């Protein structure tokens, strides 16, 4: 088997194991390229049946408009049940990445929103598209990652995970996060998308888009909630995104790559890592680990 075939088989094994062991699983769907691959693998794992779980999107209300369009189209075409949850309390308080800073905003709209949604539907397992190569604290994450009743992750008492045998026992109220893409790298993801012709959000491809330069990043002007600061002006540039999140927190890269081979080519020749386009990791050292302990995906 080639490396992609092995990765695919391992992911399918994980998806099936969760479905067989848990009563009420859900797939967290972030609309990004990793989610697209995870969704594709789920369709393969349960074919000819439909994947026996819903998709859930935690909508911060600050996602790129094209992401939302893509999300609704995929759910329609694949026949998935799509659940959308927004932290309404956060919306009422007017929490925004511009006024409250990325740390508080992420905590309220993403982490809290996610916990609310998990509690609301009483999911006992949630699939996430995180990969171990993304970030240092992810490298030690289990494939079945245990969470307490309050959704906390305790890095010091993780269950040992041997062979491909996964311990799926949880008490009422406890849950696991399952990561079928744990052993994939960014390059594997792109190669697989290319090989399997998996649809992805068009924002990954270069196009002339309106952007402003802020804090060393190129932020796309996706709607009129982005207020220009003194000295800033909107420029039209040929840009694309290596990673997708909330538009005010996601930096674009200047590029002309408008097809998959060119994107992969650019990725291989570039010298900046994927998460650099995200503000969230730079808040403080070990920030991802802290967020994960509190319940962030």
């Amino acid at each position, binding site marked *: *088997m*080639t*490396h*992609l*075939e*092995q990765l695919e*088989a*391992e992911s*399918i*094994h994980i998806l*099936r*194991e969760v479905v*067989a062991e848990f009563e009420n699983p859900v797939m967290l769907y972030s609309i990004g390229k990793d989610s697209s691959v995870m969704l594709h693998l789920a*369709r*393969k*794992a*349960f*074919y*000819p*049946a*439909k994947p026996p779980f819903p998709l859930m999107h935690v909508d911060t209300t600050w996602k790129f408009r094209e992401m939302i369009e893509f999300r609704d189209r995929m759910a329609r075409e694949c026949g998935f049940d799509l659940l959308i949850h927004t932290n309404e309390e956060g919306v009422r308080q007017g929490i925004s990445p511009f006024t409250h800073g990325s740390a508080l905003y992420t905590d309220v709209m993403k982490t809290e929103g996610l916990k609310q949604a998990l509690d609301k539907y009483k999911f006992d397992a949630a699939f996430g598209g995180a990969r*171990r*190569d993304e970030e*240092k*604290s*992810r*490298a*030690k994450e289990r494939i079945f990652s245990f969470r307490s009743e309050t959704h906390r992750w305790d*890095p*010091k008492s*993780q*269950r*040992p*995970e*041997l*062979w*491909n*045998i996964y*311990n799926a*026992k*949880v*008490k009422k109220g406890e849950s696991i996060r399952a990561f079928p893409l*744990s*052993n994939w*790298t960014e*390059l594997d993801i792109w*190669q697989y998308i*290319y*090989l399997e012709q998996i649809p992805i959000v068009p924002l990954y491809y270069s196009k002339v888009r309106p952007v402003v330069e802020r804090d060393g990043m190129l932020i796309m002007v996706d709607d009129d909630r982005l207020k220009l600061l003194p000295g800033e002006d909107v420029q039209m540039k040929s840009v694309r995104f290596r990673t997708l999140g909330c538009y005010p927190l996601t930096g674009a890269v200047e590029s002309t790559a408008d097809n998959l*081979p060119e994107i*992969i*080519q650019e990725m*291989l*020749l570039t010298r*900046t*890592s994927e998460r*650099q386009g995200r503000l969230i990791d730079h808040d403080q*050292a*070990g920030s991802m*680990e802290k967020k994960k302990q509190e319940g962030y995906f």
Partner: protein
Amino acid sequence: MAHQSELIAKDIHAYLKAQQEKSMLRFITCGSVDDGKSTLIGRLLWDSKLVFEDQLAALEADSKRVGTQGEEIDYALLLDGLQAEREQGITIDVAYRFFSTDKRKFIVADTPGHEQYTRNMVTGASTADVAVILIDARKGVLTQTKRHSYLVSLVGIRKVVVAINKMDLVGYDQNCFEQIAQDYQAIAGVLGFEEITYIPISALKGDNIISLTASNMSWYAGPALLDYLETVQIGDTRSVQPFRMRIQWVNRPNLDFRGFCGTIASGQCRPGDPVVVPSSGQQSRIARIVTMDGDLELACAGQSITLTLEDEIDVSRGDMLTDPNRCPGFANQFQAKIVWLNENALLPGRSYLLKAGSSVTPAQISSLKQRINVCTFQDESGKTLSMNEIGVCNLALDRAIAFDPYVENRHTGNFILIDRFTNATVGAGMIDFALRRASNIHWQVLEVDKIARAEMKNQKPFVLWFTGLSGSGKSTLANLVEQKLHSLGKHTYLLDGDNVRHGLNRDLGFTDADRVENVRRIAETAKLFVDAGLIVLTAFISPFRSERAMARDILEEAEFVEIFVDTPLEVCERRDPKGLYKKARAGELKNFTGIDSDYEVPERPEIVVNGANADADNLAEQIIQKVKKNLSLGN
């Protein structure tokens, strides 16, 4: 050069095509603290150009702040993931790292060398094809080296690289390298490795890692570490082994389709191949191998597939589909090596959940035959296994499972043990062989059965299991309840300390292990008496949830009534009918429940009585009222 930058830039399509043929290798690095494991992996990532500019900037900053290499870059910092361990300067868990070259994608398990973290090494090694064992050239073969080599061998890795590191610190001395290789060869004899490759390296300086460094070690002919990892042959035997697949999930989208999903553990299969289910002996043939991209003509070990069968046979999750001409073992008792992974020691007699592939079965360690000293490779005797200890055990499962000996098949001879109350993964097991006894005991078909015996007594048999602290009033209550049952014309038997501890269990003391065995024997005796048609009362502290659950499990549903005699410790201590609390407080009595040994309060007992209440007769009457429905013969 790890990636062909030129080809990427010139012809990305040709590059992508070539990449699709890549294979994958999983390996583990092991060595003692400070042998340079993290530095070695950091170097592999670095040299295969997988460190990006922003990571490099962070690395340089971190190296200055907490690095151990002075002004130089501390590659180990690339790997240390969690803040706590970064501050302690040691890796405390298994971390998985990825890099790739043009020939292969690599997954590296980075595991700690610290003595108490054996469990992490076994975890990392369980999925690895190759092990890289690091030895500090200045220190040579250490006890730790032997331990790591034993564990690598135990989990079935047959190809190892002995990387003799820090050659720069011994002046790149050939004699030093050869002496260490010789020493290692001497200890490796009993470990059964197929192939041992010795490579002199300096992870810090990059010598013989990516390519040979002729200037420093012209005496070494190769291969460089990466050359070896890119070319070592792996997994070639797995496909020629007999076909095995455990059913993970049954796919039934509609009445016309019944697909069996699973990952092929070994061998291969084609439509038309005969298969058998060992648990039932039922046979059929493979009809189709179904995938979203169309049916397959052939599927091999490692693939996750969906099969349909020609006949409607009864197969469910946990069952194994196998080659009928080369069947696996099928037994409910076997010998296995167990690595203990949890702070709470293994206790023979306690019931754990055994998960082998997708099959989950309650199981007990029926005896711990010996502990293995991983430093001397010698056997030692022992009653329990503590964390990081390895033992040879006999196991008894509640029902038989299909398996192969681990040495023959890594994918069907393995299991994990799960604690039934904390749900922690507490043990990792590798099956040696089935015990002959398992297939030799045939249950005698008895003409007179439980129902017949109970009918003659005009009652339904069951167990009233009293649990509570010493002095809580268990025995007093059990006695009163027995009297009341007797006066109702019921045939009863009371098991308590007086008639059990002095006879059946007089060889047992009060350690945790003995307490577990004590309760196990009581439960089995109670079961026999229930089978004889009696109403059984037991009055023992029975402090652990696991054993009470075990007792519940071996009886039928409605046959087990747990009665928690809930009396506060201070009340029990004040009563102290046998003067035991006084002795325990004085330190004359060890392992006394409530004082220096735990009592685990029942989570969902059928009945709770307040043992501080002085009117025992009233309490006994309450218990009789609550079991009224068990006493009536109707449903």
